[in-house]
């Protein structure tokens, strides 16, 4: 759908433009009128003249007066009368001169008859002059002629006066009309200007109103957006919580299923049960993979899935990923080769778990689809980007298939899904992860056979790796006994899970104390000391984080005990822990990766791998954190070496029996308060333990013996000693069983 983009209208078009134009025109008009008015002023100044009507009137009057005087004079005037007449004649002549020479532009020029009349008057001037010059010798007839002359002049002047008056009034009216019209024009112009101004003001008001409306609209919109954002956030939170709950719920039974399957795997099963177990285990793992993938995918859809940022070693990472992939492959004929470029740095900063996940996905895919061929993994480094290419020579991928590959739940060819299994989410998740890291994941199609998946991520070089909790290359699904037995407090509410973990831990030779909730864990932590605490998070009565907080608030060594979280929650446990104000050493998610758990426990306890042959019980400073292991395998093997299997077997069997007895006597002596008896019993116990590879029990017995001998209070609770003895017996029994099952392997030492 194309939307036509309108060219922005210029600001001067439309109603505003029209009004501006009007105002401009009106301003021009007003200016013009002003100019006209000023011009008129000048005209008026120029038109200041002597009044022509008055001049005409005076002339007329003078002529009449002179005629009157002439008649009074009589036929023969006296000298005096002649002088007077001459004076009056001069006056008349002066008036006549004035009429002819003065400037009378408007009045006399605008009347048609006036010029003729004027001419008539002025033409008589010389006659009048002559007449008055000869006055002293004028006869009666001359006087009569003068009178007639004057009468003629009078008639002209009378008419002149009337005409002048008429013209004058006309001019007056004209002037007034001109001014009136000018005033009207000006008034009209001013009105129009006012109208234009009013129009502009109206437009302004409208604009302001529109602005106010727009502002209101904007604020309403922003309010709506805020609400929408809040709703989205709430929805997201709800989804996250849902995921957490779902993940926990789904994974908990899966943990049990897989764990039990693993345990069953320890027993030797006959056909067809072994095959049944294999299918059970396989299906369980597939289900787990599916659940993980789905939950992972959902989590990655969130706007801000958190990635870790820790140092890791890329070589170790890729090697371990490859090991795991190789272990998971079904066919033995596939070849997997690794080529790491020398300029790849030793340590990088990133999210090793996620990188491993991507690697595993790509390599597993390659192995799956190129089961009979060779898969080469190349890791290289250029321009602070880490690039990994996974090339296989398998069935290859067509360009159309490649399009759909990265979409969820597709594996190129639907038939492949059925053939090879898998969730179809792997590539989609991998790509999303790589993109989150700021990189690219894609497929190289221009190859003759097979496919090449590659990804490249920008990473920073890390200063050092520090302690990494990476699992070692896989050996057996369940590793053998731990290097150094530890006292472990396990808090887990789920019975099956607890049983499982305890069993495994005990298999590793650790001493496990169980708690079913946080309150019990806290209680036990107060009473006893442990090397490591394994804490589940969601438990009744008191949950894991609360328990950890309380334990870490205790005085003494309990607070310093490292805590490992065992949780099925997919939410970032670091975040959870930090949010509750506790520090955990590490987190192992359920279902438990036993290798990971083992390494994590070792790392948490800070126990370095003991070299073979060392007798840790000989250490004099055996503090609470440096407790000797339960079983000294080396010593026992020495026994075997010395006495052979059968004899050792019998010996150990009797030891187990006697252990119970001696332990009972120790308990009795302690109960009686008989220090001496206690000392002797403990001594006896100690000797036996030292002899038969129970260093921890031996150490405990020694402490009890020394304390009893000196009369000091017993540092080790007798119950603990008793249970320790039981543990020791069990360990020996286990050892015996183990010895019987794989006799040849034990000599490997």
């Amino acid at each position: 759908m194309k939307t036509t983009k309108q060219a922005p209208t210029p600001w001067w078009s439309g109603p505003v433009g029209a009004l501006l134009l009007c105002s401009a025109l009106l301003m021009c008009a007003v200016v013009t009128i002003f100019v006209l008015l000023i011009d008129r002023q000048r005209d008026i100044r120029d038109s200041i003249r002597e009044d022509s009507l008055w001049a005409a009137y005076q002339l007329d009057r003078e002529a009449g007066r002179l005629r009157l005087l002439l008649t009074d004079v009589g036929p023969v005037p006296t000298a005096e009368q002649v002088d007077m007449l001459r004076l009056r004649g001069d006056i008349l002549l002066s008036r006549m001169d004035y009429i002819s020479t003065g400037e009378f532009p408007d009045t006399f020029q605008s009347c048609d008859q006036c010029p003729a009349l004027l001419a008539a008057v002025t033409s008589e001037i010389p006659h009048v002059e002559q007449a008055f010059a000869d006055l002293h010798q004028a006869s009666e007839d001359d006087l009569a002629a003068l009178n007639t002359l004057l009468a003629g002049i009078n008639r002209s002047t009378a008419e002149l006066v009337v005409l002048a008056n008429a013209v004058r009034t006309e001019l007056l009216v004209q002037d007034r009309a001109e001014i009136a019209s000018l005033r009207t024009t000006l008034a009209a112009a001013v009105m129009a200007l006012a109208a234009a101004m009013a129009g502009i003001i109206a437009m302004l008001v409208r604009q302001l109103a529109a602005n106010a409306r727009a502002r209101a609209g904007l604020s309403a919109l922003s309010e709506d957006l805020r609400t929408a954002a809040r709703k989205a956030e709430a929805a997201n939170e709800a989804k996250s919580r849902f995921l957490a709950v779902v993940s926990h719920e789904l994974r908990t039974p899966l943990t049990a299923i897989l764990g039990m399957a693993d345990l069953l795997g320890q027993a030797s099963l006959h056909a067809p049960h072994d095959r049944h177990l294999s299918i059970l285990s396989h299906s369980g793992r597939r289900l787990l993979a599916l659940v993980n993938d789905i939950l992972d995918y959902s989590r990655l859809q969130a706007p801000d899935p958190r990635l870790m940022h820790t140092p890791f070693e890329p070589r170790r990472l890729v090697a371990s990923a490859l090991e795991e992939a190789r272990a998971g492959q079904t066919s033995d004929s596939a070849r997997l080769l690794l080529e790491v470029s020398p300029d790849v740095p030793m340590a990088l900063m990133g999210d090793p778990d996620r990188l491993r996940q991507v690697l595993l996905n790509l390599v597993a895919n390659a192995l799956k689809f190129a089961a009979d061929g060779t898969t080469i993994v190349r890791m290289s480094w250029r321009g602070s980007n880490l690039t990994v290419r996974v090339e296989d020579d398998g069935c290859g991928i067509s360009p159309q298939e490649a399009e759909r590959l990265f979409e969820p739940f597709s594996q190129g060819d639907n038939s492949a899904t059925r053939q090879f299994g898998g969730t179809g989410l792997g590539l989609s998740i991998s790509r999303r992860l790589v993109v989150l890291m700021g990189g690219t994941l894609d497929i190289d199609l221009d190859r003759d056979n097979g496919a090449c998946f590659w990804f490249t991520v920008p990473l920073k070089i890390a200063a050092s790796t520090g302690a990494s909790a990476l699992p070692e290359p896989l050996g057996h699904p369940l590793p053998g006994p731990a290097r150094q037995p530890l006292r472990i407090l396990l808090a887990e509410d789920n019975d099956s899970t607890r049983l499982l973990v305890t069993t495994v831990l005990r298999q590793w030779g650790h001493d496990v104390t169980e708690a079913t909730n946080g309150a019990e864990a806290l209680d036990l932590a107060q009473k006893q000391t442990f090397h490591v605490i394994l804490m589940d998070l969601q438990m009744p009565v008191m949950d894991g984080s609360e328990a950890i907080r309380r334990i870490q608030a205790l005085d003494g060594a309990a607070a310093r005990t490292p805590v490992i979280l065992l949780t099925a929650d997919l939410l970032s446990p670091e975040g959870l822990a930090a949010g509750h104000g506790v520090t955990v050493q590490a987190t192992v998610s359920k279902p438990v990766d036993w290798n990971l758990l083992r390494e994590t426990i070792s790392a948490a306890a800070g126990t370095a791998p003991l070299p073979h042959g060392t007798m840790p019980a000989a250490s004099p400073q055996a503090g609470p954190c440096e407790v000797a292991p339960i079983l000294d395998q080396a010593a026992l093997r020495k026994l075997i070496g010395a006495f052979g299997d059968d004899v050792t077997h019998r010996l150990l069997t009797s030891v187990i029996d006697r252990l119970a007895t001696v332990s009972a006597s120790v308990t009795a002596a302690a109960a009686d308060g008989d220090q001496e008896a206690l000392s002797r019993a403990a001594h006896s116990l100690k000797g036996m333990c030292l002899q038969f590879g129970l260093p921890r029990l031996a150490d405990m017995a020694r402490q009890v013996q020394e304390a009893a001998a000196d009369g000091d209070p017993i540092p080790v609770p007798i119950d603990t000693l008793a249970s320790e003895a039981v543990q020791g017996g069990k360990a020996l029994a286990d050892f015996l069983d183990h010895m019987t099952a794989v006799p040849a392997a034990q000599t490997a030492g």
Partner: protein
Amino acid sequence: MRPRVPFPILMIALAWLSFTPAHAESPLPPPEGTVILTISGAIEHTNGQGVARFDRAMLDALPGRKADVETPWLKERAVFEGPLTAALLDAVGAHGSRLRIEALNDYVAYIPIDEARSLDIILANRLNGEPLSVRDRGPLFVIYPFDQDPSLYNEAVFSRSVWQIRAIVVE
């Protein structure tokens, strides 16, 4: 025609006149030539019959000025010359509020004494150096100082610019 004054009295009067200042309480000298202007009314100094009569010579003796002006009565620019009205008023000791100026044809106009004293109005009796004849609107013509103040050039002033002056009455 006046009665002839006896010679001795005339001698005494002339002698008295020659030894006293011309202004203040002394009466004006009588005119010798033709009287062209008669000033009457509220005046201090007279020279016969309760009025002050002036001939051309007496007027010429008064301080005056030349006004080179454009007038509506003549086509060209002209130089009018004559005594200042202020000087005339001082000469007669006028103490009224206005002057009633009468012309030979009985035309009358009024000039306020303040205006007569404050502006350099002259009673012109010469035009371009020549004495002003009656036909030329003489013998005396009120000429306002248009050259000094162009705003005087209007019809109201024209109507006060009396020509062919016969007499002035100080009211």
